[in-house]
């Protein structure tokens, strides 16, 4: 009798033999990467290892030199509003409207996505990201960590299938980092796929299903966090349960 096979989740985001060259420099060697709904993949590696390049390609903000990037079988291009509707990107330094409050920024995003009862979701995102008491202030008054929280909140007030985060732990205090990890776990439980680049082994350990270690644009290792992270961050203690 044949053994039962484990069901394989179809990939939401599929990168096939994707590479990127800038002039003569190879920023990313050809790689394959699949991310299924409810799955989190963490990219780790030194600065310049190709993490951000890979994120830009996955977000459709850059065109691969070779290979394809597809979301549910459709090419990913940020100029396509269908892609922007499904894909939330957090990480780029963002310029805010100087005359709109934090709450108004979030309301704008919620309305642009046709969210029902947008203000309810705005209030919820403000609370989740610890921004409730800054809801009525202008972005100029926010610290860099609070600005990062605002960008995360903007991803929460809208529907999303895939969340792409470039070093989201940057500029966050320990409490905010813990809230971030909890948020990402909730996203995964809710079926949202997450692709993040991080320099923080604890975040990758507690959130990621798979870790991809990049160096000079080449995948050195990929697999379960407990297998890859010790190679990526030798000497760092990975504490707690996953």
């Amino acid at each position: 009798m044949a053994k039962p096979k484990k069901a394989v989740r179809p990939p939401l985001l599929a990168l096939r033999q994707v590479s990127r060259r800038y002039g003569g420099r190879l920023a990313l060697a050809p790689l394959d990467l699949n991310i299924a709904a409810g799955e989190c993949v963490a990219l780790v590696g030194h600065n310049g290892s190709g993490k951000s390049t890979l994120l830009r390609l996955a977000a459709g903000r850059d065109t691969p030199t070779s290979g394809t990037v597809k979301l549910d079988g459709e090419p990913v291009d940020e100029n396509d509003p269908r892609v922007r509707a499904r894909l939330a990107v957090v990480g780029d330094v963002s310029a805010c409207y100087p005359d709109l409050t934090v709450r108004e920024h979030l309301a704008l995003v919620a309305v642009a996505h046709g969210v029902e009862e947008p203000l309810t979701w705005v209030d919820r995102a403000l609370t989740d990201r610890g921004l409730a008491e800054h809801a009525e202030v202008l972005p100029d008054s926010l610290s860099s960590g609070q600005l990062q929280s605002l960008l995360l909140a903007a991803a929460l007030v809208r529907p999303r299938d895939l969340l792409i985060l470039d070093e989201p732990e940057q500029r966050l205090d320990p409490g905010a980092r813990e809230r971030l990890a909890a948020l990402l776990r909730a996203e995964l439980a809710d079926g949202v796929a997450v692709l993040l680049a991080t320099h923080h082994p604890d975040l990758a350990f507690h959130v990621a299903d798979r870790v991809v270690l990049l160096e000079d644009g080449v995948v050195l290792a990929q697999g379960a966090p407990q297998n890859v992270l010790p190679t990526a961050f030798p000497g760092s203690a990975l504490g707690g349960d996953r």
Partner: protein
Amino acid sequence: MSGDTGPGTGSTGNGTDDNNTDDNNTDDNNTEENGTADDNGTGGGAALEETGDWTAETLELLRALRAPHRRSRAGQIGYAVYSFMLFVLSWGGLFSLGLFANASMGANYTADGPHLLAALPSGVCALSLGLMLMVARDALWRGPVVAPRATVDWLLMQPVRPGPVLRPWLWVSCAIAVVPGLLAAAAAAVALGLMERVPFLSALGWALVGGICVPLLATAAAVLVERSTSVARWVRRGSPVVALVVMLLAVQCVLAVMGHRSTLLERIEMWSGPWGWSALAGLVPTHAAQPGGWAAGLLLAVLTVLALAWAHRASAGIPLGSLRLRARTAAGVAAALRTAELRSARLVQAQADQKGRKVRLRIPPPQRAALIVPWRDLTSLLRAPSRFGRAVLFAVPALLLAEPAADARGADRVLLTALAVALGYLGVAQLAEPARVEADDPRRAGWSPYPYAKLMLRHAMVPVAASLLLMTLGAGVASALGEGPAVWLAPAAALPLTAAAMVNACRGPSRQELMYTPTGAGGMGPFIFLAWYAAGPLTTVPALAFALGSRPVTAVLWCLLISAVLMYWSYQRALTLSGRHRPKD
């Protein structure tokens, strides 16, 4: 789609969220009304039909939220427009009225009429083509469709149709582009009215054809540059050639005024494209009208309308990556300009323009330490060959002016020499860029085995050699083409001009505090800032304008003396810059 932690949409989304059919229908209708064919495809409304189009609601919310900001902005713009109109009407309008009143009372301004008519064909071609080049170059880093950073980073990152967001910026650019065209048309109409006795309204009407259509056509073409990287590449490659053509047209214009005309060449130029059609239209009400002038005007107007219709559609399809880059560059340049950091503004713009440029040329580093600075400067210059091109562009008219300046007498001689020297300075200053880069941040000189001030002196070696070579070659060519011996003063002038460029290079970071320097004579701050900013040319141009007017041997000796003084000055400025001498507050 997410359920508990993520909000659901009211649209026909991809997931299992509840749909709000009524809202969705309304939006579809909105899309039909507002949406145009340009919104199809990437970034378009057709794609949004699947996810639900909330553009109208989003823009309505944004308008409501930003109403106070828009009112304040409208006030600022209104005040700027009022001030500009007041300036133009009080100076240009009243002055012109005065001239027309004089003419009606018998004053005769027609003596220069034939010269004006001779200058118009090539002059208008040069102006129109120059404007088109300028607008196309601007589109390489900024462009007619340049939304603010917040709009790109927040609004356009959402699934909204970009057309309704971007088109207003296109039309704002069109409106701004038309302003110089209107002024030029008005000036041409006044000149034709006075010098050729052409009825003012007729002259204005025909001049407006070019004055309005050429800027609009250039703006529409700039959308193409902004949209397509391959077109942008062609513009980058073709710019030196077009710049050369513009310069030749300007020379032809001067020659035409002096009586050397080629009507066949002018006819070919005027029918060669929209730049010439505007000249043909402008000539219609004069007695120098060419056959088919009205047809050229009509052709230009039709082409402009078609181009604008295309640009209106195409502006919605500008890639978000391009918009993001341009928004950041424009914000950086604006920030630098607000703090009078003119060089920073230029660097920000150049950085965006040269993004992705490959480094092809490599010179092997020298073995001798003494050659390391010239090696670094030569490498830098050879990797930016456009600098040589610009040096030649400025040097050519400078050399061409040398002989007329030598032949002139009195104040004309000084003025023409000063103009030639100023053009020569602009040419030579292109070659001192490596020194300016070194002075932008003195900490960069950490690698140098030399003290900072002496390092800056060493940075003069390559510009001196290059400018001497340029001016000697130029003088040789000009002499072979029949120019007089005055052109041979150009190599001698190259030395003080390079030294003046070094004085400016050793200026260092912008000293905005000079803008607010208190003086006993009122608000002189901007002039003090200008004196500091352009100290090199402001002292050298008048000095050389007088020195080059003397006998050749004396002129050469003056050049050497001025060079020595300027090099000492640049050395002292470099010492100040390196912190050994603090600036006197």
